[in-house]
């Protein structure tokens, strides 16, 4: 029997599939992501007068990470992220959520083989390739400096 599907079925199915409304998604992501960054800037302004620049640079992400982990545990974060998309993913909140949600999820499989090995299942690639990218960046910078030094 001739297969029921057309040869270009995949193309057709993908072309006719329902699409996300990119404009609405972008606006939501901009508003939520912007709000998170504004909040972080407000924290920065609060801390810098009292604690100095070095402590502030450390504390602002710590507060954001803590709040993300807390709201992830309470089951609120994914409800916001569903609408915000990149708005919650791009700031450090996305990274914190990836780690804390994986930790919550895998705790039943034990501390070592569960939580220990699965906590970085989503964040792991970011850490690996982020580190790799920074090494490459470092080498490029070093070579540029060498070239710059030679030129001078």
């Amino acid at each position, binding site marked *: *029997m001739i*297969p*029921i*599907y*057309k040869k270009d*079925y*995949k193309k057709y*199915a*993908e072309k*006719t*599939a*329902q*699409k*996300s409304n990119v404009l609405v*998604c972008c606006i939501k992501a901009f508003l939520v992501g912007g709000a998170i960054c504004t909040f972080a800037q407000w924290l920065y302004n609060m801390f810098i007068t009292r604690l100095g620049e070095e402590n502030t640079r450390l504390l602002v992400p710590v507060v954001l990470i803590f709040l993300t982990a807390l709201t*992830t*545990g309470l*089951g609120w*974060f*994914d409800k*916001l*992220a*569903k609408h*915000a*998309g990149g708005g*919650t*993913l791009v700031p450090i909140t*996305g990274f914190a*959520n*990836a780690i*804390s*949600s*994986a930790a*919550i*999820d*895998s705790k*039943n499989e034990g501390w070592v083989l569960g939580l220990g090995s699965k906590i970085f*299942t*989503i964040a792991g690639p970011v850490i690996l390739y982020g580190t790799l990218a920074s090494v490459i960046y470092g080498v490029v910078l070093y070579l540029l400096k060498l070239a710059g030094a030679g030129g001078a």
Partner: protein
Amino acid sequence: MSKNDMIFKFENKPAIYSVGTVAGKKEWEGALPGIYDCHCDDDTFGMPTWEQSESEMQRLALNHALAKLAWDDGKLGLLFAGDLINQCTSSGYGLLDFDVPFLGLFGACSTLAEGIIMTAFTVNAGYVNAAAAVTSSHNCSAERQFRFPVEYGGQRTPTSQWTVTGAGAFIVGRRSLLDIEEKLIEAKNASQSQPSPLFTHVRIAEAMPGRSIECGMNDANNMGAAMAPAAGDTLLRYFTVSGTKPSDYDLIITGDLGYEGHRLTGELLAQKGIHLGNNFADCGLLIYDRERQDMHAGGSGCACSALVMGAYILPKIERGELRNVLFIGTGALMSQMSVQQGLPIPAIAHLVRLIYE
């Protein structure tokens, strides 16, 4: 038409007597609210892990189905059960309490149809007087296994479907069992208020198991499109071999094609000159209020068809509102590993014809 295009006819017409359905919160509040035998507001069913919650749902579902008949498990000759979790552990653990020979099944979301076919085979052949088909799926255990952690903040595509939390147990028995008939009538008169009562008129007439069909789709967020060719293939074979047309049936209902798969199946069959009309429905589109509950393309999972068929369609057949129904259980036979390796998703669709008699 190949020589394997065979419709299995059950001349002894095994009957579906009793169904137990267990639903999660979203299903209980969905488009078919409050029709299930039991539900749990936090989806845990009192268990510490999601996998155990799913097992507990299977246990509850089969207990409900047996309780309606006032049976103990000794009356069942065989259990056919399956689920989505690796090695079907939800069924293995969930059915520990029952002292019945157990045959595990894997048909992904088509497990219910597969189970009903297997019970019909064994009951029709006379090997057992009664057998049960049990299946379950849990949104959280499925998310964990196939996608992301439950609390991960990701966005789902409009084509993605929501795995249904629930379980269903279908008890299939021989029509000629006199003591069953008497008990049935007794029990039926006694408990009119039950959400889904006992059935005395629902028969399994025919079955056509599906073939594994792959059509190049490798997007795990668009399972409906992956399963549509399988559903279309089975329906096309069935219509060709039986010489019938869609309008001969009161209802043609697929398991969990969702919005995308439902649309594509209709289009594929239309190309072959078979036009499905308003009697073409899908359990995945019926179970949730897609707009209000933000369910994207609809429901999926083994429990999707189990809940809709058990608590909504079978009672309609029992009341005589539907007299000739084609139920096509659809499943995507992929694993997380096959998807990561970029392999296209094979799909399957098993057809069961249910009649009022």
